[in-house]
């Protein structure tokens, strides 16, 4: 009986480790993809911010928080200012599962 419980627990742990590895890989993939997008536009400025975020939206299906933090630092806009504009458009999504 104890053996079975242990096996079940072990299996649970394996799952957790596996999924964390997967998300790490995902993370790396996304960071690379993001850096490539940045390279494509050269330099993210106030003028091309929305064009850039449009590309991010297309690549990831949403605009991650980390991206907003990054472009806020790059453009000098505050995060609030960017979110204020982003959330008013139907085509920008803030989470993957968002549908509005």
């Amino acid at each position, binding site marked *: 009986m104890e053996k079975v419980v242990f096996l079940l627990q072990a299996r649970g742990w394996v799952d957790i480790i596996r999924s964390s590895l997967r998300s790490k890989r995902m993370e790396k993939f996304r960071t690379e993809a993001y850096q490539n997008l940045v390279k494509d536009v050269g330099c993210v400025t106030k003028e091309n911010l929305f*064009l850039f975020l449009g590309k991010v939206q297309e690549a990831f299906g949403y605009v991650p928080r980390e991206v907003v933090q990054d472009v806020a630092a790059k453009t000098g806009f505050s995060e609030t200012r*960017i979110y204020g504009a982003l959330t*008013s*458009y139907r085509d920008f999504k803030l989470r993957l599962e968002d549908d509005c």
Partner: protein
Amino acid sequence: MKETKLLTRRVGKYDPLDLSGYKADGGLVALKRALSTGFESLIEEIRRSGLVGRGGAGFPTGAKWAMAAAEEQGPKYFICNAEEGELGTFKDKVLLEGDPWMVLEGILIAAFVIGAEQSYIYISSEYEKSIELWEKLVVEAGRAGLLGDGILGSKFSVDLQVVKGKGLYITGEEFALISSLEARRAAGRLKPPYPTEKGLFGRPTVVNNIETIANVPVILANGVEAYRRFGVEDEPGTRLFSLSGDVKKTGVYELEIGSGTLAEFINEFSGGTANGRGIKAVQPGGGTSALLAGTSLGCTLTTQAIRLAGSEIGTAGVMVYEDGRSTLDIVRGLMQFYGSESCGRCAPCRIGVVRMRDIVERLSQGEGTTEDLEQLRQIGKTCVAVSTCGMGQAFPIPVLSALELFPHDFEAAIHHVSA
């Protein structure tokens, strides 16, 4: 009544990405001529051609260009508006995908005339295929020396950026469109100052509808006199009419302005109403134009005649409603759309559009009262009078016209409950 193919002449005749196909059919003649002519005389030509904006407001294109060209300080911007959100209007797609090089030629001429160094084409996010095509087209044009530094060996340089719309109806309005390029929330602004003075990033900007731009190469290639032979004296040229609603056949048709009546147009091209009944009402200029009763479709297809009949030619999106359609259903459909499209910047539109939608909803569920009708009228009139931008001034119009044309339908909805 026949189609007059002036703008859609080449649609489907060549592969949209193939520049040589366009060149072989008289393409780039206008651009070459324009680049060797001074901008003043080009403005004069456009002014004499009598070309007015095709996006709905009908502002003279020559005057708009002259205002932007007169601004001395650069940089200036040119934006081609293909963010086509109006209900019942789908003409932009024909030009975007059917004859993109002509649109590009128009953009280049416009940018040259006003002295813009950066231009944008803003395409609705619903037209994914068009966006894809245009992104390839820009690369192709760069290779052919049509974009970038020293276009066709001249001193003139301009770049074109394809911008995907953000899925909002309001971005079709010029200031809202500009705001969305500036990474602000899309909203109308009070005018003046007009975009030609303070537009994109506070610089002089011209925003033209894609159909307006498509007219430019035609005018310059064939000459003003040849162009003015089409249409009527006050309103030369052709227009692209989108036909939809309760009809057997929908589509986009290019007609000479004033070449026939609204009734003739619908009879000729629609193949009859969907269920073969008579026509109850028609919106001749997109979702925000006033309804015309089915018995008063004898007006010719000119701005003036349609205005006299009590509506607007607007975006020339003709929507047909046949007999048997409930008036409340028509109005409810429209209000459900506009009800979630106000940008929220000015109070009359922000509050009015929701209140009107709710009242219409209540009426169509049979829970309305007599006061509701009076309120509907009052809110509508207030919005038309004091809203900041075109959307707030226009969305109540179909509701108000329905109240005027079919008052019994609204009253019946109320009495139905109390009985």
